[in-house]
């Protein structure tokens, strides 16, 4: 190990150094700005994805949608009723809406039709329309709100879904009720909404047997949810704790879809 002499410092103008230092101290805003820009970069790292990563953005948006499901579940008041209207306010004609055109509406044969009920229920027998028609009936004039923004008022009649679930001995502590439909549509709802007093397994529209275009033989009507959550042409109902998803929900529509 060699011991080196400290090098001689070149002659410096002490006054100039102090002047230069003061000049730098006087511009703290520059450093502050840079430091804050860095923090902004750090913030974007916090999201766990780079902004130009499209899949990352989609994943983040889906995560927010799941968060919105929880917020809506928390906001949902099982006793709060959707507004009802006089029959004079019914929208005529009530609009047809599906993921296909009106000429592709499925024709369901009434005599051979059976409603399957499976999953976490005590009574798994399949129901005929006559059996469902013999249960206590109720009707409602409520506003259907579509995810597209438009709304229309209609009149639906049928069986209280809470009543139906209790008749089949459904495990009402389960998380989901799922639906499979004759038009290959499928969706699922939370148990709290399934038990809401205005959730109706409808068999009629405007006092007449549910026409094919409005979902014959039955539609689940929930004025507390957007239109795409109200399945038509239902063939099977199942109670489950496994998330069943839905036709539109799997493509990115919000699952809870509450109003």
């Amino acid at each position: 190990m060699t011991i080196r002499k400290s090098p001689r410092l070149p002659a410096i103008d002490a006054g100039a150094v102090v002047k230069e230092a003061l000049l730098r101290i006087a511009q703290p805003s520059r450093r502050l700005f840079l430091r804050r820009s860095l923090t902004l970069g750090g913030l974007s790292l916090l999201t766990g994805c780079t902004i130009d990563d499209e899949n990352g953005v989609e994943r983040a948006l889906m995560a927010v949608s799941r968060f919105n499901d929880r917020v809506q579940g928390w906001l949902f008041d099982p006793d709060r009723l959707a507004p009802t209207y006089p029959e004079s306010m019914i929208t005529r004609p009530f609009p047809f809406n599906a993921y296909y055109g009106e000429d592709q509406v499925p024709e369901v044969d009434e005599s051979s039709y059976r409603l399957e009920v499976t999953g976490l229920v005590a009574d798994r027998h399949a129901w005929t329309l006559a059996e469902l028609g013999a249960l206590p009936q109720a009707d409602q004039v409520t506003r259907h709100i579509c995810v597209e923004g438009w709304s229309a008022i209609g009149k639906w009649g049928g069986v209280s879904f809470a009543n139906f679930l209790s008749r089949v001995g459904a495990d009402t502590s389960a998380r989901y009720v799922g639906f499979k439909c004759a038009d290959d549509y499928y969706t699922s709802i939370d148990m709290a909404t399934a038990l809401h007093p205005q959730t109706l397994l409808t068999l009629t529209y405007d006092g007449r047997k549910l026409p094919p275009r409005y979902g014959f033989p039955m539609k689940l009507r929930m004025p507390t949810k957007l239109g795409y959550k109200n399945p038509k042409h239902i063939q099977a109902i199942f109670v489950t704790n496994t998330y069943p998803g839905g036709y539109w929900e799997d493509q990115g529509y919000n699952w809870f879809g509450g109003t």
Partner: protein
Amino acid sequence: MRETAVIVDRRPIHPGWLRATHWLNAVAVVILAMSGWRIYNASPFFGFRFADAITLGGWLGGAIQWHFAAMWLLAANGLAYLACNIGSARLLRKFFPLSPRAIVADLRAALRGRLPHEDPSRYNAVQRAAYLFVIADIALLVASGLVLWKSVQFPLLRELLGGYEAARRIHFLSMAALVAFVGIHLAMVALVPRTLLPMIRGR
């Protein structure tokens, strides 16, 4: 040390919280407006649609995802802004007093190009009115948006705004007012560009 004897006013024209909430709000508003136009296109109630090229989300479902994500940013950031603005008494100090007479006088002067901008830390009457208006407008956007999102769960708000369908129109018109504000705001920044720097670095 005579050089340091000059005491510089280190207080920024716009404090850090104001600049942060301003730019976060700008991001939220751009996302919400562009995704909102796409949502409007799904069922337009006025006789026109927005060009798809200026919308966000690619399709209705994507637009709704953007809209219902950015709404949290707008609301949380807006609440933080209001809390800081009211809590620090800046709201009172910067925006008041404000009289209709002063607004008219300053507006006339501005239109004649005679409204001075000597002191960027002071808002003129037109600025005061415009910024207070946009605060109220965004509050109305949030309120009508809540009715559209959860019309059953917020019955009082729904009835105050005249029902679901009325809330749709209110939401659209308050969006239009916000977009008009942004247009004028950007034009004013272009006319008086030295107002931009303080909003970025504080002074």
